[in-house]
Structures are given as structure tokens and as C-alpha cells.
């Protein structure tokens, strides 16, 4: 056998084999988690498509259990009202691994997680042998087709396409796919929780879920406008590692000289800065073709980046959920007694990567009746992080908080829910599973400050409530003695008991109403600014 054949055969098997062996890396580990990841991939694509087209998303998700005996065999249907996908792109969008253009885009985007819908199509095919059915209504046409993947070529296969005119105003993509080796569960890691949290962080979406057994849940839209679209920014030199620099250089075809590549690829890297770099690394030829940059030179450059004083990157590319919108969706879902949302100003970690933190802290009310205690809801760029909470910077920061200081005696045993959304062009995940945020000091600090800010708001409310409670108690205590005292005062003085009691009750009413006002006005919010070491 010729060498070529060996490699050909090796390659034919490789994609499927690679997938099978590395499922965990792609997020398909565990039956429940796998199903959640599948829904996540399809829903994320739908949300991105709708928002990009300026359509308010309406997502329909249905999970059917196909074989009650065999178990672990499901059909997943995800339907959106997006622009749909034209026939020419349908195969590529759903049937080609790593076909996306998300690589190295410095853009705040959901799709950083997972490896896309194609992986789900492949997972479906590998576990059931069935193609994925796609129905795309796009620009007046409606295409129905079955999609599989040709492992030999890693190319999509579009089978039995049927094209018909779409109904008036009909638009959107529906994907129907079967899976084995997955399981539906109503747990903290399941599809229901994923969609509930997605709705929480995306109040402009309307999401409907039909679970096995035809139980329908609706998460209605609470905000009638799509969020501002994030825009792409050039990476900042301080956010770049050696490997990143080499990748950028290899993919750059527009520049003949390294100096031009650097100036045009990175933000804040002016001609003046190139001169500074030249002086710092005389061994590197700044006139060479960037594609010929080697590891050593890249490393020298990256080290030099650290020595130059840069202007911080622009942070206006970040799009948070927005304070008001969190308030609306939180209120809709939990109806808490008190809710405080804090949105921190954008900051930079590792010197070059913009990020910002939003926190919503809710207490009491609907959380009590829902028996929710110490619920932590983590998000990265609006995407719920359900797994790997142990090592996540958000979880650890919440654990490290001295909640007692904020009148929350035992975080895990009180009706309190926290939402933390980390927004960044590059979320620092701990691993390829992309479900936990690594312990970046700058990021953790911001999370902490945001939590403290929100906690102070909740504390102010709680202490106010306790104060009102105290005053009511005092009033009650004194009031219960009015009858006895009045009748004894009448005996002592010879006056009428009734009129003494009436007047006394009036005095008590006035006194405690006044006390309530005085105390409410007199209590200042505890100042902790100095301790936080904020410098803004």
C-alpha cells in the first residue's frame, strides 16, 4: 500500500473518530449535558441569525422521547423566525465542521461556545444513522432537505431537497434531529433550566418549550427591541499571546511587511509604537513578510508588547444585557420582593481585553414561594453557564463574599438569586468546555465590586424592612398596654377611661409614624468605597 493510501484511509476515519474520542472536549459529555448542548447550539444559531437580521427572536423548542423502552432516544426540534438560510448555504451551515468564521474575530458573540450546529448534525448521524431534517423559509422560498456529513471529505450532503413557495411572510429555519445516548431531565443542568436562563438574559426573546409528555412552557418576551449589535474591534497588543500572534500573522494576506501587519491588525499600535518595538527587539526584521514570522520572533515581539506603555483598548464594543432589561426580565420570572441590578463600567483584563460585569441580586417574594435558595445564575455574553460551576470565578467570588455584612445571614439558605453576566470580546474560559470562567484577578475584582454594590442595595432594603418591623413591634408592644393603663389612670385621676385610651392611642400612632420617618431619613448608606479600592 502506498503511503498516500494510508493517509487517505486515516483521514477518512479521522473526523468521525476524532469526534467520538473527543466528545467531552466539545461539550458532549454525559447524557443530560449532551442534550442541553444540542439545544444550546441550535438556539444560539437562531438567536444570532434573528438579531443579525433585526428580527425579534421567537424560538420554539420541542423534545420528544421516541422510544420509551430503549430510553435515551429523543427527537429535538428547534424552530425560529429568523431570515432562514438560502439553499446554497444550507449544507454548509449545518453540515460542515469548523465552517464558521468565528475564529479570531474580536467580537462579543455567543458562538464562542461549542463548535456549532454541524457538530450536532454529526452527533445525530453517529448515534442514530439518521439525517437531520432542515426546513428553511427564506426570501419567499421554502426548502426542505435532509442533511448528513460525508466523513471522507468532511463535506455536507444535502439529500432529497424539495423547494416550494413559502407562505406570505413566512421566514425562518426549523431543524429536526434525532439523538441517542442523551437524556431529558428537569434538573439544574437540563434543557428547561437552560432555556429559562436564556430567556432571563435575553428578554427580547420569546421562547417556547415543549417537553417530553407534551408539557408546554412559555418564556414570553418582556422587552420589545433587539439589543444593540456589538461590533468587531481589533485586538489590543496586551491581550495577545505568542500563539495568537503567529495565527494572526499566518492568516494575514494583505500585508507584505511585518510593520504594516502589526499596525493594521492591532488596536493602539501606531507607527510610533512600531518604532518603539523596533528599538526593543533589534533582532526582528520588521520589513519581513508576516507569514514568515517564526515562534522565536513572535515570542520576542509579545515580550516587547509588555514593555510598551499602551493606551487602553476601546470598550464601547461591549453590549451588556442592560440594567433596565435585567430588571424587567428578573421581575417577570421571579417577582422578587427586592431586586438590585448593577452594571459596572467596562474594564480591561490582562491589560488588553475589554470586559464588563453585570449583576442582578434578587431577594424574597416569588423566590420564597418558588423555594429557591441561594441560586447562582452564571452567564457569559448572555449565554447561561450551567456546568462546571465549581471552578468558576463567578461561583468562587460569590462564595468569598461576606454576605452577613449585607444582612444575608446564610446565602445558601435564603430566598436569594444572583445573576452574573460577564461580557467580553474574549471570555476567559477555564477549558474548551466553555462552562466556567477562569480566575482572572481583574475579572474577579469586578465581579466582586458589582456584587458588593448590588448587596448594599439589597441590604438597605432589608434593614429598612427590619426597621419598619421593629417599629411596628414597638408600637404593638406599647399599644397592648393602653387599655389597662387607661383604666388605672381613670381610677387614679377620676377621669374617663375611654377618652384617656383614645388620646393615648392617638399619641402612640403619631409617635411611631414620626419615628419611622426619622429613622428612614437618618440612616445613611454605609460607605465602603474606600475599602473596595475603586479608582474611578
Amino acid at each position, binding site marked *: 500500500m502506498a503511503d498516500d493510501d494510508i493517509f487517505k484511509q486515516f483521514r477518512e476515519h479521522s473526523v468521525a473518530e476524532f469526534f467520538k474520542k473527543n466528545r467531552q472536549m466539545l461539550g458532549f459529555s454525559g447524557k443530560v449535558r449532551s442534550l442541553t448542548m444540542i439545544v444550546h447550539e441550535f438556539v444560539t444559531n437562531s438567536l444570532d441569525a434573528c438579531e443579525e437580521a433585526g428580527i425579534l427572536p421567537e424560538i420554539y423548542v420541542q423534545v420528544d422521547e421516541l422510544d420509551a423502552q430503549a430510553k435515551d432516544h429523543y427527537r429535538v426540534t428547534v424552530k425560529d423566525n429568523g431570515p432562514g438560510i438560502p439553499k446554497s448555504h444550507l449544507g454548509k451551515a449545518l453540515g460542515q465542521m469548523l465552517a464558521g468564521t468565528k475564529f479570531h474575530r474580536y467580537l462579543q458573540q455567543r458562538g464562542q461556545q461549542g463548535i456549532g450546529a454541524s457538530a450536532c448534525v454529526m452527533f445525530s448521524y453517529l448515534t442514530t444513522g439518521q439525517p437531520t431534517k432542515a426546513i428553511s423559509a427564506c426570501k419567499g422560498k421554502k426548502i426542505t432537505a435532509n442533511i448528513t456529513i460525508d466523513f471522507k471529505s468532511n463535506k455536507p450532503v444535502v439529500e432529497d431537497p424539495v423547494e416550494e413557495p413559502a407562505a406570505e411572510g413566512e421566514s425562518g429555519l426549523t431543524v429536526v434531529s434525532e439523538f441517542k445516548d442523551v437524556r431529558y431531565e428537569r434538573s439544574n443542568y437540563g434543557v428547561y433550566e437552560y432555556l429559562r436562563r436564556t430567556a432571563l438574559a435575553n428578554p427580547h426573546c420569546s421562547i417556547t418549550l415543549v417537553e417530553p409528555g407534551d408539557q408546554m412552557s412559555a418564556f414570553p418576551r418582556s422587552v420589545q427591541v433587539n439589543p444593540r449589535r456589538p461590533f468587531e474591534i481589533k485586538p489590543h497588543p496586551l491581550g495577545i499571546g505568542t500563539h495568537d500572534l503567529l495565527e494572526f500573522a499566518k492568516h494575514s494576506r494583505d500585508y507584505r511587511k511585518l510593520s504594516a501587519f502589526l499596525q493594521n491588525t492591532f488596536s493602539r499600535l501606531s507607527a510610533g509604537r512600531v518604532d518603539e518595538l523596533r528599538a526593543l527587539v533589534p533582532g526582528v526584521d520588521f520589513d519581513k513578510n508576516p507569514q514568515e514570522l517564526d515562534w522565536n520572533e513572535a515570542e520576542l515581539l509579545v515580550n516587547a508588547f509588555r514593555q510598551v506603555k499602551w493606551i487602553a483598548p476601546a470598550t464601547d464594543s461591549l453590549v451588556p444585557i442592560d440594567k433596565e432589561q435585567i430588571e424587567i426580565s428578573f421581575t417577570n420570572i421571579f417577582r422578587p420582593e427586592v431586586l438590585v441590578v448593577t452594571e459596572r463600567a467596562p474594564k480591561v483584563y490582562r491589560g488588553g481585553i475589554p470586559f464588563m460585569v453585570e449583576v442582578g441580586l434578587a431577594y424574597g417574594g416569588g423566590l420564597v414561594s418558588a423555594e429557591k435558595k441561594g441560586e447562582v445564575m452564571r452567564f457569559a455574553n448572555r449565554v447561561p453557564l450551567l456546568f462546571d460551576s465549581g471552578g468558576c470565578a463567578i461561583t468562587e467570588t460569590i462564595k468569598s463574599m461576606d454576605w452577613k455584612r449585607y444582612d444575608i445571614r446564610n446565602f445558601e439558605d435564603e430566598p436569594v438569586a444572583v445573576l452574573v453576566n460577564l461580557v467580553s470580546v474574549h471570555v476567559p474560559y477555564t477549558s474548551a468546555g466553555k462552562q466556567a470562567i477562569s480566575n482572572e484577578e481583574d475579572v474577579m475584582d469586578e465581579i466582586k465590586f458589582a456584587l458588593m454594590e448590588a448587596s448594599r442595595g439589597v441590604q438597605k432594603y432589608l434593614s429598612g424592612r427590619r426597621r419598619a418591623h421593629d417599629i411596628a413591634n414597638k408600637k404593638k408592644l*406599647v399599644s397592648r398596654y393602653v387599655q389597662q393603663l387607661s*383604666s388605672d389612670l381613670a*381610677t387614679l385621676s377620676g377621669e374617663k377611661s375611654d377618652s384617656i385610651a383614645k388620646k393615648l392611642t392617638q399619641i402612640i400612632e403619631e409617635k411611631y409614624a414620626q419615628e419611622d420617618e426619622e429613622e428612614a431619613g437618618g440612616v445613611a448608606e454605609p460607605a465602603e468605597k474606600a475599602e473596595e479600592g475603586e479608582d474611578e
Partner: protein
Amino acid sequence: MSDATKKLEALGKQMVSQVEKGEGPTFETVLRTKSNTIYDEAIGCLRTGDKKELRKFLSMAQARTFMQTVAIGAKTKQFLRENLHTSIRGLFYQLKFTLGEDIDEDLFTEQSESNALIEDIEVALKIKREDLNLTTDRKGFVAGPMTILDRFGGEETLIDLTKQGRSGWSIPSDVDNGMEIKKLDADYVLVVEKDALWQRLNEDKFWKKENCLLVTPKGQSTRGTRRLLRKLADKKLPIYCLMDCDAWGWYIYWTIKTGSMNLAYLGRDFAVPEAKFLGVTMSDIKEFEFLQKLTMKAKDVDVKRAEEMLGYPWINRYADWVRELKMVLKTKKKIEQDALQGQRLTFVGEYINKKIKNKEWLS
């Protein structure tokens, strides 16, 4: 209308007028703490100082006690109107009821609550509990040349204290209200600590021979006994006391003389600074040989009490007492008054005569 009734009514009217003005009712009383207890040299007894305290109904900490205090006031006003007497325990039971069907609380739950508040009223209104028809336990006895007019239960009884036989006249809890000294021929008053010694002297007709009033408080003096001694001292009768020479005896004596820390608020009305301590003294042991064999070893409590007494400014100002107490600390001995009968039963009388005649007493 009695003075106490007037004062109670004035207190009520003052509180009602506060309420009518839209203020929470209050009343002023004197602080009854140790730090506000002073020894008043001018009158020679313990009394409360000048620190005042304002009690408020509209206060979390005081609302309940305020209501309770007024309840006691109202209840005692009723006793006075009906001219009926009861003990402080009887008062407690009169006031031990629930505040209402929907209120899970009693007006009073413990007698200790009402006892303390009775003292508050005494201090605030400058009256005695006896003036509120509240009786106290009695246990003292007296015999001798005095005639008392007792108005009680709608009757008037004339009591001749020379005709009380072996038992003597039992001193009532209140010697002020409805009680009048009609005739008093005695030259002095002799107070002996123990009933046993009183009976001995009564049998000897000591009070007749000496023309004195023979009193025993039977241990610590009741309010009635102290009040009677005060009234007798006011009649210019010298008051001589014969006690055990030990901690308890001294304490009984000093309570008669200067009042106690607990009841300091009663002041001079219940104190007899003029009282003298005849014996038994440590010096007696030296003087009478037979007593030396009858001493006992002083207990720790006696020694400790002696040390404390040396520290009290109302005691250590008397050189004779300092000398006496230091002797106790040195010899660690004590002796009972009964020891005076050790030689002859009639020795006691001689001993007392000698002491009074030669003015051999301690201040």
C-alpha cells in the same frame, strides 16, 4: 381623704394632663441604686441621693413596668377608699390577671415584679407602703409602761402594755395609721435581739423595776418595729440595744441605727441614729472573767462582716467601733448574749444597769 390618697390622685391627674397635651405619660422617681445610696452625716443614717429618674410609658424598656406601677397605684387607692388592708402578696394576687382575651400576657407574673414597684411608688410619692394599706410581716414584741389606742376594724381599743402577761404586745406592721400612743411613762427603751432573753427579763419584771420599755425584734427588725423605735426616739427616750457579739447581731443593730442599704430610700423615718450598743462587746470578755470560757470561735462570715464594717464610713467614723472590730479580727472570737446568763440567771439585769449607769456603750 388621706395624704396617700391625695398623692395618688395628684399623680393620676398629672399623667392624664400629659396625655391631654399629647405627651406620653411619665413620672419622676429617685434612683434606688447602690451608687445613689449615701450616708447622711447630718441626720446620721443612710438615704438615697439626689439622682432622679424619669419613668416613661412610651419606651420599649419601661412600658410594661410603667403600666404595672400605675396599676399598683390604682389598686392601693381602692384599698384606701374601702379601708381594707392586705399584704404585698395579697396585692400581687389582686393584680395577677390577664391583660385581655387577645393578649397573651398577664399584668403581673411574679411577686418580685410588684414588690419592686411598690418601692418605686413609696419613693416617687414620698409615702410608706403602710400608708397604702399594705401590711408587712410582724414579729417584734414590747412590754412596759405605755398605753396605745388602736383603731381597727371599726373599733377602738385601749391597750396597756403593762398588762400583756408573759407574751407582751405584738408590734403591728403599721404603727402610724390608726395607732396612737396615749400614755408613755418609760425612761428608756431596751432592745434585746432574742426572744429568749426578752422572756427572761420579762419574767424578772425588768421593765417594771427599771421603768423601761422592753422590746425584742426577734432577730432582724421589721418595718413596724423600726418605725416604733423611731417614734419612741422622737419622744426623747434613749434607745439601748443588747445584741450578740457577732456578725448577725451587729447587722441587726446597724439596721436599727442607720437603716439598711436595701431600704435606704426610707431614710430617717425608719432609722434611729440615737441608738446605743450596750453589748455584748469584746471588751466585756476581758472585764467579766466567766465570759472568757463561754466564747466561740468567730466564723468566716463574722470575720468578713467585721472587715466590711470597718470599710463603711458610717461605722468607721466611730473610734470605739473600730477598736471593737479590730479586736474581733485579732482574737477571732465571738459571744452570744445568752452567755450573760452563764453565771446567774439574774446577772443580765445587773449587767444592763451597770452599762447604762456608767454609760458603757458603743456608739
